[in-house]
């Protein structure tokens, strides 16, 4: 079993607002080992992006964080901002949905990669030019020499994402946090970006947490998956297990509602109702209102995430693995 790279214990995040508080994450715990590819799926408001932001400590000041985030033995929540800055970029990398927000429009691609190499990867000044070229080649950008001289707006969305990945990969981070990295990209470009992630995991042994609402992406890329709903993890396990034999009613409903090319039904399965209001305190299981098999117990008591390490579910109506 791989040593634990990241261990999250009892993480809760509450956003303080002018009128009320938003309970974005409620008591989330899980861990990741080295070289693991973990997907976090869920719909809007489930807290997956908040989770990533909590790990990289980029939440706004109005956020109240409880719990521990232990990375290689250090509690990230207790670190000073300076120390955290050292972590980010060197040991923890970030890939965002819109790479344009992470790239500076005023500097060429070459400039930006070289800067990262110099300051974060500690490369020698003479070699940055060559290393920048290597970085672009490693992410399969065609004609890398001319690309180095171009500005971000001259590149397509897919190329920008590759540049962002290159900038992260050249620092050889231990953990890569990717928030919807392929959502804004065309389907054909998406496949090659997913391949890049695979390559990074393979060659550098990095662990990757991929947050997305697209189950297909997680299915293709990840080893393990966490399904989130209304700020909690409701199911986790190995990808084939969770998608082929989902145990939580929400996961089951999610898998059923996606049209697959192999069968053409006249109607899709649609989960009735909507995600609950996260500013209200939710008593009992958050999914109970929309669940087909909910009982009175489900409405009163919140189920814990239980089960063996490799397969956990938070549902009263599941066979318990005690």
């Amino acid at each position, binding site marked *: 079993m791989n040593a634990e790279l990241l261990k999250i214990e009892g993480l809760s995040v509450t956003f303080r607002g*002018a*009128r009320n508080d938003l309970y974005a994450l*409620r008591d989330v715990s899980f861990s990741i080992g080295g070289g693991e590819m973990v997907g976090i799926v869920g719909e809007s408001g489930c807290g997956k992006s908040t989770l990533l932001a909590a790990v990289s400590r980029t939440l706004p000041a109005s956020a109240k964080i409880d719990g521990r985030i232990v990375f290689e033995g250090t509690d990230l929540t207790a670190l000073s901002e300076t120390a955290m800055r050292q972590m980010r970029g060197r040991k923890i990398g970030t890939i965002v949905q819109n790479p344009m927000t992470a790239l500076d429009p005023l500097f060429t691609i070459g400039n930006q990669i070289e800067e990262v190499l110099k300051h974060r990867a500690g490369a020698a000044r003479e070699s940055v030019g060559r290393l920048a070229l290597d970085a672009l080649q490693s992410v399969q950008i065609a004609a890398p020499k001319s690309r180095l001289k171009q500005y971000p707006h001259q590149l397509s969305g897919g190329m920008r994402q590759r540049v962002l990945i290159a900038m992260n990969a050249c620092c050889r981070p231990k953990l890569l946090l990717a928030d919807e990295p392929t959502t804004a990209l065309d389907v054909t470009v998406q496949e090659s970006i997913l391949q890049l992630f695979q390559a990074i995991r393979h060659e550098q042994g990095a662990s990757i947490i991929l947050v997305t609402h697209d189950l297909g992406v997680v299915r293709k890329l990840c080893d393990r998956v966490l399904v989130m709903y209304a700020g909690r993890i409701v199911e986790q396990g190995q990808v084939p297990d969770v998608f082929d034999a989902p145990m939580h009613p929400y996961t089951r409903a999610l898998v059923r509602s996606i049209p697959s090319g192999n069968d053409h039904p006249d109607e899709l399965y649609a989960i009735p109702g909507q995600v609950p209001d996260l500013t209200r*305190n*939710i*008593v009992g299981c958050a999914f109970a209102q929309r669940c087909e098999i909910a009982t009175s117990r489900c409405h009163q*008591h*919140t189920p*814990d995430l239980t089960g063996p390490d490799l397969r956990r579910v938070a549902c009263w109506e599941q066979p318990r693995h005690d």
Partner: protein
Amino acid sequence: MAVVDTAFLRPRRRRRTDAPVVAALFCAVLVAWAIAAPLLMPFDPNAPNFESVLRPPFWEEDGSRAHLLGTDQLGRDILSRIMLGAQVSLLTAFVATVCAGTFGIALGIVGGYAGGLIDMALMRLVDTFLALPFILMALALVAALGAGLGNIIVVIALTNWARYARLVRSEVLSVKSRPFVDLAKVSGLSETAIVLRHILPNVLNSVLVLAVLDIARTIILESSLSFLGLGVQPPDVSWGLMLADGRNYMLVAWWLTALPGAFIALAVLSFNAVGEWAKRHFDPRGSVETAI
């Protein structure tokens, strides 16, 4: 076993608000004076009283409860004059803003929606007006039209309209590109109907914010002109005029200039505070700042 979730139950908190309550109250007082000054004034602001000349405010040694804020060199009651002055300042601000706003909105919508050469022509006109220095323009217009309240309203409107036009034009450009405008066309709505039902209502928010902030600006503009003698003329009363009147007595009677000056400052601060609050709530994208 799990128990009922009490972890996230917390006592209801009093709603936190960021409204500038004191500022709003002060503005309300000024507005009340503006509307009903003649009814509320304790004395006739133009009636001289040579027995009670240069009395200090009531908290000073020589002051009296009768004249709360003292009297000036002709024995006229300062408080009454300030109240009437409020009427003048706010009236000027309101009328000038409405004129500038209406004209500016109309041109801004035409330019923004029509685009092309019309838009370019409009923008050059706006640039020209914004480039002219206010005092110079005021002097020229007063030389042409003469001094007086009506004329300075015209002067102020002429200097302000361009800001509304520019703001509205940029807002129209942004609203025009939103899908619901295209969908209104697809519905078969005429261009006029689109402008009135879809474009205009979405532009008004930032216009309102600009108008409130403009009140503060106009108060200063009007006071400056009146101070220079170009604006309000006696027997009309204006804070700026009071400043000019009291200038010669500053060393012996500080209240003649300090009090109207304080009211100018407080009025500006209060309207600005209310305007900033309005901006936070009605113009979260900051269009007002970038457009003016």
